[in-house]
């Protein structure tokens, strides 16, 4: 009887482990943003070491981009971005915590794109706001690829753009992310 119980317990534990192991992640996700205005120097940067973790059993997703990792073509622009706008010495992280609506990993088919609603909290410059957008997921062999495309307003995140450069920076910032999540 005891033996049977132990066996049952072991089986439950194993199943729990199996479920908790359903994590997909990347350490080298791409996160780009652009706030360019036509006829002026492009205001854009790319981050190629963004971390993202997707819990495939719940659809919960967490994304972290260390602000210093955003690279601009123009070194001075990168410096101003860090020092004047993002204050990355004091606020080194940009993150998102949220979930994919009605997510089931079994709904993903190889090479077939599927759209999910994604909502959660986006933290930029130390300010957290709820956002909602769409994510496109696809099975890529054993990996899951996830892309999103949305925009934010700098003012929502307490980022002041001085009037001197207001004409050269778009009021809306487009953010694109591209993650190839591998099974942990």
């Amino acid at each position, binding site marked *: 009887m005891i033996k049977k119980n132990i066996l049952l317990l072991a089986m439950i534990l194993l199943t729990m482990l199996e479920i908790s192991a359903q994590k997909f992640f990347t350490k080298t996700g791409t996160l780009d943003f652009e706030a360019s205005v036509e006829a002026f120097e492009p205001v854009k940067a790319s981050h190629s070491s963004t*971390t993202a973790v997707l819990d495939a059993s719940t659809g919960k997703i967490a994304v*972290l981009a260390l602000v210093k990792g955003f690279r601009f073509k123009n070194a001075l622009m990168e410096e101003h971005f860090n020092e004047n706008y993002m204050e990355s010495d004091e606020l080194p992280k940009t993150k998102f915590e949220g979930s994919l609506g009605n997510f089931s990993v079994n709904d993903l088919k190889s090479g077939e794109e599927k759209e999910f609603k994604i909502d959660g909290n986006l933290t930029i410059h130390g300010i957290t706001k709820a956002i909602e957008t769409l994510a496109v997921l696809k099975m890529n062999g054993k990996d899951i690829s996830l892309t999103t495309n949305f925009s934010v307003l700098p003012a929502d995140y307490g980022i002041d753009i001085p009037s001197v450069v207001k004409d050269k920076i778009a009021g809306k910032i487009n953010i694109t992310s591209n993650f190839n999540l591998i099974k942990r």
Partner: protein
Amino acid sequence: MAKSHKKKVVLILGGILLLALFFGYRYINQEHRDISTEKAVFEVGAQQLSNDFKNNEEEATKKYLNKTLQVKGQITTVEANSGSLDNAVFFILGHKETVVQKSLKGKVVTIKGRCIGYDNLLEEVKLDQTTIIE
């Protein structure tokens, strides 16, 4: 007399303007830091670096963020252009070097890169623009 004086002033002003333009242009188009040629501010073991962040992230951030670090540790994972030391420090190469040799896995190496902060999701310190020194 008055004429040559005027000429002098124009010349000096023109010179100043040219210098201002030159330095202004240089300032606006300044080069990026080249981490691979910078001297490391700290030389530290991968475990130690990771422990510093785990024990007090705020203090470690103040100490290491945006600084060039030389880190020693065993290569535990190798990806296309990135890898990790002692499962505790993630590094991604600069654009000049693009591939981490698969054969390096398990080897103890020293790398030099810029610390961009602590990834609390995967509990790893992150370095970018890294070069593998030895």
